[in-house]
């Protein structure tokens, strides 16, 4: 069975408060910028049912309402038992590798970037055998090349290097 590893603890109240602020922020932001984008003088004009602002304004108001609900939940006492754990050790490495891959696509090209990323991710997931890492780093992009570029005829982006 899977069991989560130790990580940062996040109290439910903190999570609810953060989400509450997110809801208020997103809704408020949309209400602030939308009239300008659609050429309406203000929110009151933007909410015309036949106009383009009507639906996003309703969604923004729902976001604000949901944000307030989350903030109210944040005021409740925390449940008994262990606080929520937000594990970030390995997942932070995965996110970093994904970010580098995404940014490196233009430089290295998709196949090279994916090969390096696959090998790096295998290390994060606990693989230490060099032969397996090398095989993953070579066979994965090769398989993707055969599947996408040769079979499906989808040209993958190249980079400055390859």
């Amino acid at each position, binding site marked *: *069975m*899977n069991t*989560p*590893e130790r990580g940062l603890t*996040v109290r*439910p109240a903190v*999570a*609810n408060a953060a*989400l509450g602020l997110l*809801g208020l922020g*997103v809704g408020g932001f*949309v209400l602030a910028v*939308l009239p300008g*984008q*659609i050429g309406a003088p203000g929110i009151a004009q933007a909410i015309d*049912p*036949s106009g*383009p602002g009507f*639906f*996003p304004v*309703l*969604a*923004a108001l*729902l*976001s604000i309402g*949901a*944000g307030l*609900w*989350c903030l*109210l*939940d944040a005021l*409740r006492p*925390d*449940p008994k038992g262990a*606080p*929520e754990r937000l594990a970030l050790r*390995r*997942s932070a*490495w*995965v*996110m970093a590798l994904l970010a580098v891959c*995404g940014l490196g*696509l233009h430089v290295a090209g*998709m196949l090279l970037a*994916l090969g390096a*990323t*696959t090998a790096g*991710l295998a290390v*994060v*997931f606990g*693989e230490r055998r060099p032969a397996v890492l090398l095989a*993953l780093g070579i066979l*994965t*992009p090769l398989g*993707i090349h055969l599947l*996408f570029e040769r079979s*499906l*005829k*989808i*040209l993958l982006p190249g980079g400055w290097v390859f």
Partner: protein
Amino acid sequence: MLELLAQGFGLILNGPSLTAIVLGLLTGIVVGALPGLSATMAVALVSPFTFFMPPTIGIPFLLGLFKAAIYAGSIPAITINTPGTAASAATTLDGHELARQGHARKALEMSLFASIAGDLMGTAVLIVLAAWLASVALRFGPPEFVMLYLLAMVTITSVSGRHAGKALLSTAIGLLIGSIGLDPMSGAQRLTFGSVDLLGGVTLIPVLIGLFALSEVLVQSEAAWRRQTTIVVEGNGPGLSRGELRQAAPTIVRSTGIGVAVGILPGIGAEIATWLAYGAARRRSREPERFGRGSLEGVAASESGNNAAVPACLIPMTVFGIPGDTVTAVLIGAFIAQGLVPGPLLFQNNGPLLYSLFASLIVGNLLLLIIGYMGIRVFQRITTVPASVLYPVVVALCLTGSYAVNSSVGDVGLTIIAGVAGYLMRAVHMPAAPLVIAMLVAPGLENALRQSLVLSGGSPAIFLSRPISAGLLLLIVIGAGLFLWRQLRAPSPTT
């Protein structure tokens, strides 16, 4: 209907289509048997590949994958007490106990036969009911569609756990994301911030791949795997007897009915169906004390319930364009990419093609029976694939699949962002399903809402003056009311 079905079989009974169905089934079995890979994840990951295939090949592949993944989730549930997919969670209760008692083969065979039976009966309901509903839906106007979309969102929000505010926030964000791009009526740019890439809106498939597939990889990176010893089937008792199968038949039929009823409701899906079917079977059983201690009836109930929901989920999807669950939310994208726009006109404009897909469900069931029975000894070994090999390859496929949708590097970035967001959402118990379904229905909901208000001169009374719309509104009010009442009465949600 029978004539259309016959034409459908004619379109599907050929080498390429049958090969696609078999490949879809095999892929689905691999996906379903691997804990941590869900049917939604696999369909989202694989659907971009199908855009380049004819619809009689691409869509049957996806449908085969869907049904096989739901079935195959029972394999690790029985052998290592870990469901391969959420829809098989109830199967662990009795399936693994049976395996511990030396009856793994019985449990695996019951799972297979119950899944096939449930799926076949659910498919029959789909074929009969969908066409009739489509003819009724042709009478629906914009107010009725507004209510249907709202019903779907209320339903998915209310079953998304006890974190109501978070589910609502997820819905609101989904609606906002769905609003990004050009306004369909006036052409005004909304929330694009000058970006040319956003003029067409946010592409659905890369977001789905990120939210469901990539976020799962992030979750699995933090999970310390402790696999229990896989119970090898060869030395594990006799197979299922005819008497045992006959004894389970009433349970299978009842659970199928529950699965179909749940699957038809938009926004729910197989994960809920399996528990409802299991609970009903335990209550009606002559030996309820055996449930949880190795009851074949328990396995039969959960597996027939979850697989019956698979074809039933296609009913709201094909008839109204509303996803029955998150997998059908992805399938809608695949359908549209193939030029099949879900909705009542789909039956009028693409009847033979649509029925060929229904026929592929029947053919897929028969093939799954053969493949599943022959492969029982082999499939349970899939659970031994190491995470250090599996998940990096999954990530590579995620990123490439996202790129393939529009040949856009921007979509790769979108997938990564959605993956990280999905992981953080799971960490704070904010459900992703409402976001996805809201994002999907937002354009249709907005269109229908604005058309309704234009028709009525801005008066919301139009939703009350039309009987079907008023009836659906009553359902929404009752559903939302019950949900709010439960929220207010319940203690603080535990983590």
